[in-house]
């Protein structure tokens, strides 16, 4: 029997939308030449976020009606804990529909925590080629880094305890009728 852990709503649907919008505009202002920009979402929840940022950029006519390309990165094969038991993750495919060489890549993920996911994502990305520069955009930075990795674009800084976990709900991935939401749970992280 598992008791539903205590959970607190941190960002609601409106706040998530506003945050994605702001992230997109910060990328627009600071990421350098847009012609060579590409967004790469880390599976699973970074991918829909990257797509949403691309939509905002399109609406803002960032490239005069053209889309900023979006790629998907799966990092399961690059994790440093793949065979530690307990936390088995499904392996998905990576798909980058563009040449990464000489591009500015903005990596997109939902929650930045220990930094190990981003370390794996950097290694994975490098195996596709040599980008000009790589930036990091996250919806939530919850602290407790274990590696020297810092985001360039942060939606929301959240003060958390190690025993807590942050759950991002996005309908594209999590399904159901429930709208976008970010929760803080009083239960340890699972599978990450």
């Amino acid at each position, binding site marked *: 029997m598992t008791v539903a852990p205590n959970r607190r709503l941190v960002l609601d649907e409106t706040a998530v939308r506003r945050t994605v919008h702001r992230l997109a505009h910060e990328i627009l202002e600071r990421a350098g030449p847009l012609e060579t920009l590409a967004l790469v979402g880390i599976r699973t929840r970074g991918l829909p976020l990257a797509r949403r940022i691309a939509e905002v950029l399109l609406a803002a006519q960032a490239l005069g009606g053209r889309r900023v390309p979006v790629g998907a990165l799966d990092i399961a094969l690059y994790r440093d804990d793949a065979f530690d*038991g307990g936390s088995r993750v499904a*392996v998905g*495919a990576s798909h980058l529909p563009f040449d990464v060489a000489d591009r500015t890549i903005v990596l997109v993920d939902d929650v930045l925590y220990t930094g190990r996911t981003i370390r794996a994502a950097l290694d994975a990305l490098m*195996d596709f080629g040599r980008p000009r520069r790589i930036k990091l955009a996250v919806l939530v930075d919850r602290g407790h880094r274990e590696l020297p990795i810092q985001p360039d674009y942060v939606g929301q800084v959240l003060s958390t305890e190690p025993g807590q976990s942050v759950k991002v709900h996005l309908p594209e991935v999590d399904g159901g009728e429930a709208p976008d939401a970010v929760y803080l749970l009083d239960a340890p992280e699972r599978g990450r």
Partner: protein
Amino acid sequence: MSTQRRHLLELAPLSAHEITELLDLAESFQDISQRRIKKVPALRGMTVVLLFLEASTRTRTSFELAAKRLSADTLSIAGGTSSVVKGETLLDTARNLAAMSPDIIVLRHKHSGAPHLLARSLDASIVNAGDGGHEHPTQGLLDALTIRQHKKRIAGLKVAIIGDIAHSRVARSGIAALSKLGADVWVCGPPTMMPPGVESLGCRATFDRTTAVRNADVVMMLRIQKERMTEELFPSDREYSQRYGLDSGVLALARPDALVMHPGPINRGVELAPEVADGPASIILDQVANGIAVRMAVLYHCAGGGGGEA
């Protein structure tokens, strides 16, 4: 916390769900072979021993490439160069290898059940790369994956497997994988090459090529394995070809969009006419490419990765 050792010894006991999971995993490994850097660090620091005590080039190189693309260290031991020729038993050979702490041993052996013996006796994960006339599970998986990718499904397809069913581990693994996934599997061959009771594996049997090929979605031709036959099972290559080979005339009986498969190496002009082997229906080279992805998935799975639990 200890992860239970995982083996892949045969497909027959696996569920449709388990087979589908391995195929899905293989599919996600496919893009790696298309990249400029065809390597991921998933099995870094692990050792994979390729113990091939029976002649094989393509399966061994396919496993070797799969292990290397996952960053594992590989050690290849072939029948002719090992102490087996000095009279060492399989178990002694394997125990000596096991003392070097490999994580996975991939075994090809002429006797059925040899991988099971190793799995019972050693600490490493064992992958069967073909044991006698029993099974060749990675071949069965790559055949299923290739069909699924071309037809977008397996359930409901008529698959004809034609050739030396009695001696064929490819046929056994193919029947196991495809019948579990819902295909209507037919096996066909001369009476001397059909094992009695083959239907119990989950297929239908006929001696008549026309019955097998008519309206088939997939025609899988098996290699005539002269090295595995102890007696003459058919009068001549020519007669075999006329009654059980596949040429364009026979293929016309199948569905217009039928696929032709062969595990290789082909005896051209015996079981498969050159115009069919090189024709538009042939997906033989896709099978070879998929072999690497399937073997990557199997090695990754046996190392403890993937899988839905947790």
